């Protein structure tokens, strides 16, 4: 059951999408996007979620927001089971959870002014009236380091980094407790990435936000997160503190993922152990038996092919969860 300092608790979450074929759209299988995962997010922490494309990280975020009707399992938010809420109650609770998208070009309505984009959630949730509206928008703009006079401009008049700031201001307009950030900086240039990352960290401190930070860039995720969840083909391979992630990765997949990221210092990079993953990620329609990672794993033994390893805590001191027979 949900404990008090856990803002979000996910229990055995399963999300399948049907695959249909033929003129009758008969169901022929399932895309097993998320296949039984459990984790929690503590109040005020940043939980990173990493993995290759198609591992289910975005789907997990959307399930927490209840944008999908989940196939199985439970999601608790502030101790409440989301599946048991009426749509009216859900609407109220959704104010407390907001989403920041990857693509600041596609996620802002091109026909609305930046001010209206940021202010829309305030109107939807009936949070302001009259003159307050304009003041609040100006305040939100200042908060994300944009100038209030920019409120009358349209999205195309902003740069990528500024557009992402608008997305952040919009998400924070209703003062949420949880912000799900889906690849918030990966479409931005290096120097702008640093600007937006620092801004997000500052806002977290200022408003006591809790972040679920979904990204494929391990260096960024490690930098901003307190703990990191590593996903592969719909399952969790490892959950560790961000410091442990680089110093003591236990799962062979995490190790391979880390070694694939080159370090921008040739001297340091040459000294690292390199494990090269070969082949592509198998299809989530028909995932491998046993441990999903076994066909690409360098440490595979017979049991890995038959039995799904359990996610267990082996952390001395802090928590360190790993799902591998060989650890």
């Amino acid at each position, binding site marked *: 059951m949900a404990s008090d300092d856990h803002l979000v608790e996910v229990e055995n979450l399963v999300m399948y999408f049907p695959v249909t074929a033929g003129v009758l759209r008969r169901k022929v299988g399932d895309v097993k996007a998320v296949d039984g995962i459990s984790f929690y997010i503590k109040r005020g922490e940043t939980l990173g979620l990493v993995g290759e494309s198609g591992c289910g990280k975005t789907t997990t975020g959307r399930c927490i927001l209840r944008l999908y009707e989940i196939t199985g399992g439970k999601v608790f938010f502030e101790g409440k089971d989301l599946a048991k809420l009426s749509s009216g109650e859900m609407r109220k609770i959704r104010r407390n959870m907001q989403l920041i998208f990857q693509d600041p070009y596609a996620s802002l309505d091109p026909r609305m002014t930046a001010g209206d984009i940021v202010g829309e959630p305030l109107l939807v949730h009936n949070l302001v009236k009259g003159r307050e509206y304009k003041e609040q928008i100006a305040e939100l703009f200042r908060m994300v380091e944009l100038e209030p006079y920019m409120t009358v401009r349209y999205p195309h008049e902003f740069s990528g980094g500024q557009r992402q700031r608008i997305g952040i201001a919009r998400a924070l307009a209703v003062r949420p407790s949880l912000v799900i950030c889906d690849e918030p900086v990966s479409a931005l240039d290096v120097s702008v990435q640093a600007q937006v990352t620092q801004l997000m960290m500052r806002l977290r401190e200022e408003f006591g936000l809790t972040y679920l930070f979904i990204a*494929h860039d391990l*260096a960024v995720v490690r930098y901003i997160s307190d703990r990191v969840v590593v996903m592969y083909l719909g399952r969790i391979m490892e959950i560790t503190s961000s410091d442990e992630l680089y110093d003591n990765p236990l799962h062979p997949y995490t190790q391979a993922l880390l070694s694939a990221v080159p370090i921008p210092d*040739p*001297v340091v*990079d040459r000294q690292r152990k390199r494990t090269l993953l070969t082949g592509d990620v198998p299809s989530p329609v028909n995932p491998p038996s046993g441990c999903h990672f076994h066909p690409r794993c360098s440490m595979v033994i017979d049991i890995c092919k038959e039995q799904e390893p359990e996610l267990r805590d082996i952390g001395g001191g802090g928590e360190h969860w790993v799902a591998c027979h060989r650890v």
Partner: protein
Amino acid sequence: MATVTVDEEKTLEIKDLRTYFYTEDGEVRAVDSLAYDVRKGECVGLVGESACGKSVSALSIMRLIPYPPGIIVGGEIIFKGQDLLKVSEAEIRHIRGNRIAMIFQEPMTSLNPVLTIRRQLTESLELHRGLDKKTATEEALKLLQLVGLADAERRLGEYPHQISGGMQQRIMIAMALSCNPELLIADEPTTSVDVTVQAELLELMDSLRAQFGSSVIIITHNLGLVARHADRVNVMYAGRIVETAPTDILFGEPKHPYTLGLLASVPRLDLSRDRKLFVIDGLPPNLARLPKGCAFCPRCYLAIDRCREEKPEIEEVGEEHYSACFRSGEVQKDKWEHF
């Protein structure tokens, strides 16, 4: 990492290249007085943020600048002793895709969706190497195996949408290598693929470089990639090279404030999470309205009056190390913590 011998012999020499675009905003100097060399067997990294002229400089080498609005205003691109800007359209067509090949950023948009993988691969083999259909297909199969594509025979009959992004990029590499190019230009070759696939593809390019002795230009904004794979790095800003050095030296002792800023602004796996990221304030300049002095000056922490008035020329600051900054002597890596 594959060991590659780098010759003194130059495969490519770019001298004072200027590619401008004429738009409603006025003259946009996408590439301005660009100069660098690529030696035989060398891998040169070209790094910088979007719109700094990286891709335009690559397209200039291939003579693929769309006219209008773009035009190569001046300079020389000497490839194996021959100025590519002076050869006829027929000659450049013989060089393009044959002796100089390019891998583009988005494999899905660069592959032709209505042609099978076989057709896309055999086209250049038939055109440039004069092979007949049957030999070309055999050769195509060999290429796919070379780039490590599983199930190559079946893949030949498939269309681009039927395969994953990583496989598409592998096919792009196979196409680029089909004529054993002397120069391979990879423009953001891995931005659309996962890190694991990225590592594999670049490893593959390294080993092919070792095997065929081709030269490679990697264009990217990923500093890690060049640290791992390039022999030499050119840092571009606003259409020019602001710093160039052998990879170890550039990362070890950067001498341009922009290079230092880039290095200090990326989170690193191996460094403490307490390290504050350096933020380069502001945005890259509008190339149609470049400032009078140094283009980086409005964002530079070392800027002085002289930088606002005068454009710094690129000067030698160490062995094979050049920087375009009046204050390059004061750029110090150990000052990171003080940002």
